[in-house]
């Protein structure tokens, strides 16, 4: 049981390049999330998904796209990377909100640098 995994762990891009970050979870969770963490800003929600085939915008969605084609995977795309997208990206997953107490489980993070 690997929990939540993220690929890649590190990446350096040039301005204007594109890339996709992959998140996978093996806990059969319905909900998945993408966050970014910046110094002094805490974790901010980029996009999230409440089930296979669904996506929704979070707090800071501009410049990112996501897809949830399979329940276990949640992809985060940067179509044209900018230096402002230099950050550490975390993926998380949780069960349904039936009890309201389900916590989110986080992956180890992807450190992205855009030059």
């Amino acid at each position, binding site marked *: 049981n690997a929990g*939540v995994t993220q690929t890649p762990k590190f990446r350096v891009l040039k301005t204007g390049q594109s890339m996709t970050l992959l998140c996978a979870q093996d806990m059969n969770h319905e909900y998945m999330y993408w966050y970014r963490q910046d110094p002094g800003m*805490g*974790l901010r929600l980029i996009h999230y998904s409440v089930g296979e085939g669904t996506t929704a915008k*979070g707090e800071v969605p501009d410049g990112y796209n996501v897809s949830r084609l399979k329940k276990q995977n949640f992809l985060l795309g940067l179509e044209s990377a900018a230096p402002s997208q230099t950050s550490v990206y*975390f993926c998380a997953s949780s069960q349904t*909100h039936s009890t309201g*107490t389900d916590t989110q489980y*986080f992956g*180890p*993070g992807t450190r992205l640098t855009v030059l």
Partner: protein
Amino acid sequence: DQQVKQNSPSLSVQEGRISILNCDYTNSMFDYFLWYKKYPAEGPTFLISISSIKDKNEDGRFTVFLNKSAKHLSLHIVPSQPGDSAVYFCAAKWDFGNEKLTFGTGTRLTIIP
């Protein structure tokens, strides 16, 4: 606008003493609060939570206190151990089918041996 605030970026505590981490929030809709712990190069891990219908929740060495009138919560760690050195994030959500968490900026706790 920061709806969840952790005003102390860092805190140092002697091993064996009590660590108290504070968190304030502005959104009165929040009714569920969580603390996450994060080690370097790892993702955050869930530590403890509290519902707004309670004012205290305890789990071993960790206790979270909630003061709704002051919109304030605190995490107490007693006794503090070197392994508690980490960044602690406070998070909040409102519990109407909404799984979105709003995080604070974090407090780096250092336990001095």
